[in-house]
């Protein structure tokens, strides 16, 4: 690796970092054997964490940050003055293998600015994946960003080599997309999601490989005026209609060379956090978008408390619930009890009547749950309905310190 390549790596990693997705999960177990290299383990591994708390699992880079598009929120848009660079297919392949052999990564997450044409760009991305798989027997994880404007047959090919495909929606409404990303088109993005979703399902049924770890997308939060409600409604549609594996939320981050069309200030990072929590409630806890939104105000989630607690505080007539008899569905709605704790409770109570100290062994969120739970030796009494319950449960906000 020479200095020129190091410089390019710096530029093209910097350019790729605004994509929140870094998961290496969901791939079937696979190994490269004596002639190939690598393996996928199913759950994925974070090989490092950066000081922003984010997991480093894949080598996340762009093939190039030259771009013919002009999306206002993006540092790589053609009207930005950012430093540009471009990898060759072979360079990306060598970087991936080099880092992989040093156990720095699970694989590659490759995206790109649009050069020459969407088809040309997509083809280059596909070539990287193909070279890794076919010429090097690479069995690590490959996540390819698909270019929705590319011809559909290229997407068909990409899915054969990649573990996961993603297409970033970026903005939750077609109107915002038109305003901020003039070359993009919401309906063609959704058409590709539909295509990919269908192919993934068919391949599963036919026991073939096609993007076996599913597809994902990202939405930027806080760049436009969309409410949390509309973001979550979009996610809900994506999960249901296109079978997406994950929706990532990325709080709009001030970027060097920002476009004047954007707000100068970032939204609170807490907003992104709350959206992730709401997303979990949607997928694993049986909540509907409307229930989640009702916990907040005016279509925005409560930034001060998590959405499950917010819902519980507004629906106190449903509490307290008895750990020894409530059904799983209702236990999942108890603030402080995670899905895993609930499963353990359901299993453990078959053998014994649970007391509060038992619950404490099964869940680390008991402090929060107490007010909403009945156990053999515990009843919250009037606590559930106290007007100051929220204050009692929420520690005063701490000033974030940088050290």
């Amino acid at each position: 690796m020479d200095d020129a390549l190091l410089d390019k790596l710096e530029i093209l990693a910097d350019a790729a970092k605004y994509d929140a997705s870094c998961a290496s999960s969901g791939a079937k177990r696979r190994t490269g054997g004596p002639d190939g290299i690598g393996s996928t383990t199913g759950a994925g591994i974070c090989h490092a964490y950066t000081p922003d708390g984010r997991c480093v699992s894949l080598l996340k880079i762009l093939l190039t940050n030259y771009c013919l598009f002009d999306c206002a929120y993006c540092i790589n848009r053609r009207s930005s003055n950012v430093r540009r660079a471009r990898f060759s297919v072979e360079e990306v392949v060598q970087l991936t293998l080099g880092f992989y052999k040093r156990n720095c990564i699970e694989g590659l997450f490759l995206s790109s600015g649009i050069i020459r044409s969407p088809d040309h760009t997509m083809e280059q991305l596909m070539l990287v994946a193909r070279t890794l798989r076919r010429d090097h027997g690479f069995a690590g994880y490959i996540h390819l960003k698909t270019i929705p404007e590319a011809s559909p047959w290229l997407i068909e090919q990409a899915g054969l080599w990649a573990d996961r495909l993603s297409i970033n929606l970026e903005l939750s409404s077609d109107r915002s997309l038109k305003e901020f990303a003039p070359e993009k088109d919401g309906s063609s993005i959704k058409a590709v999601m539909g295509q990919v979703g269908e192919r993934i399902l068919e391949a599963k049924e036919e026991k073939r490989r096609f993007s076996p770890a599913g597809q994902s997308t990202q939405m930027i939060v806080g760049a436009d005026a969309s409410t949390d409600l509309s973001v979550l409604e979009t996610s809900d549609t994506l999960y249901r209609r296109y079978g997406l594996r994950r929706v990532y939320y990325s709080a709009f981050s001030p970027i060097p060379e920002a476009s004047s069309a954007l707000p100068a200030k970032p939204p609170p990072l807490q907003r992104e956090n709350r959206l992730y929590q709401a997303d979990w409630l949607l997928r694993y806890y049986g909540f509907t978008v409307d229930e989640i939104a009702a916990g907040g105000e005016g279509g925005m989630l409560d930034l001060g408390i998590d959405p499950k607690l917010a819902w519980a505080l507004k629906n106190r007539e449903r509490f307290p619930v008895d750990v020894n008899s409530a059904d799983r569905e209702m236990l999942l709605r108890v603030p402080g009890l995670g899905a895993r704790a609930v499963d353990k409770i359901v299993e453990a109570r078959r053998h014994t009547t649970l007391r509060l100290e038992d619950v404490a062994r099964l869940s680390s969120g008991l402090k929060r749950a107490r007010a909403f739970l009945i156990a053999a030796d515990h009843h919250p009494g009037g606590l559930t309905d106290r007007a100051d319950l929220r204050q009692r449960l929420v520690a005063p906000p701490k000033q974030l310190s940088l050290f």
Partner: protein
Amino acid sequence: MRHVELKDGADLDGFRRALRGLVALGADPDGVVWSGGAAPSLFGTAPGTGTAPLPAPLPVDAPPVPLPRPVGALIESVVCHRDPERYGLLHRLVCRVVRGERDILDHHADPLVHRLALLDKAVRRDLHKMHAFLRFREVRDPANSEDRGGERYVAWFEPDNFIVEATAPFFVERFESLVWTILTPVGSLHWDRRSLTVGPAALRPEGLDRDDRFAEGWQRYYESTFNPARVNPTAMRAEMPRKYWANLPEAAAIPGMIRGAPARVQAMIEAEAAAPRRRNPDKAVAAMARQEPATLAELNRIIRAADPLVPGATQAVLGEGPEGAAIAIVGEQPGDHEDVEGRPFVGPAGQLLSRALEEAGIERDAAYLTNAVKHFKFVARGKRRLHQSPTAGEVKHYRWWLMKELGFVRPRLVVTLGATAALALSGRSVSVLRERGPMGFGDWEGFVTVHPSYLLRLPAGEGAEQAYRDFVADLRRARGMVEWAG
């Protein structure tokens, strides 16, 4: 008091042997003291030196103890923990299982189960962190040039527990094709691409920081992928505690990254949006929109250059015939002959098709002939290449090309031969024998009939001849539709 002496570290075999003996004797866990190898016994009395009468020696050939699978897995994990009480706790657990609590691990609130679950979790976390945070360095070893030009990798890692052997399967599986050595203070592993050697504890090797450009590249990558606007060291330390930093080359940069973050963010916010220095690349932007293949020849170039989307195939077989043909005939996929020659309908089924077309009064050269799937899908059985029907998903992989192709040819009628072609055009599964005849395919007038290879598979006789006559009649009818429409 009974004393059980095990080897240092995670002595799974020793524990298993001892456990069998203890269970066979029905020993009470409270009467057993476990010690590992050279570790000094806190209880003072080594076997035979105490005043108490010596317990009977453990039987050496006691039978295995049947345990539920999750209990076995828990034991394998917990013996790796460095907690000196681990063996005693496990013995206690096994006694309860033997006494009838088969599903004891479901009692999540039971204090013993809970305690063991915590040990298990700690070991798993330790394993996971070793998989994650261990870094190999490349050490070139020119003397040993048979191994990929001397490519060798060495790592130093400090786990919390006795997990080195337990991590071996992971590293062997992942780096089976490389030569590597893992050194730790509690044991070492060496893999030479064929076999694994488990070695003793090691000291931190000298010279590991010697320059490896990739290690340097990794640090640069790590710094670049960090977003200073989101600095959150607490979250980082929760997942990557400080104790791991010493052996992570990239961690050296962390303090500087955190210190520099606020200033970088401030600079970004203060920087006014600058006018683009570069001229708007209007021409390139306009050109970008013209990526669609404009002619059939361009489309064919794309198809020919692409990899097969089905297993098998040496080359793509393109459609043949004049653009503007009145009839387009779509088959399933090229067969063995077609794959070799690179032309559609040249094998036995193709010859039968030619005959039938002639009898039906359709000039083969005036029709456009193509396939729904452009590659021959087969499995090799010895020298033979056995045709495999494409799946519905595979047909859809190719559908875009077929539709574009027909868009260039603009036939007045699309005749589909067999179920695959009918599926490709109609988008649903079609029962050819029941639905044969005219069928609308969206933009195209269509006609469904059988594939000539179906006729070839029928046993010779009156039935086969009738089927052939029906096929010719279908084609004649299709011709009639075109002539009538024209």
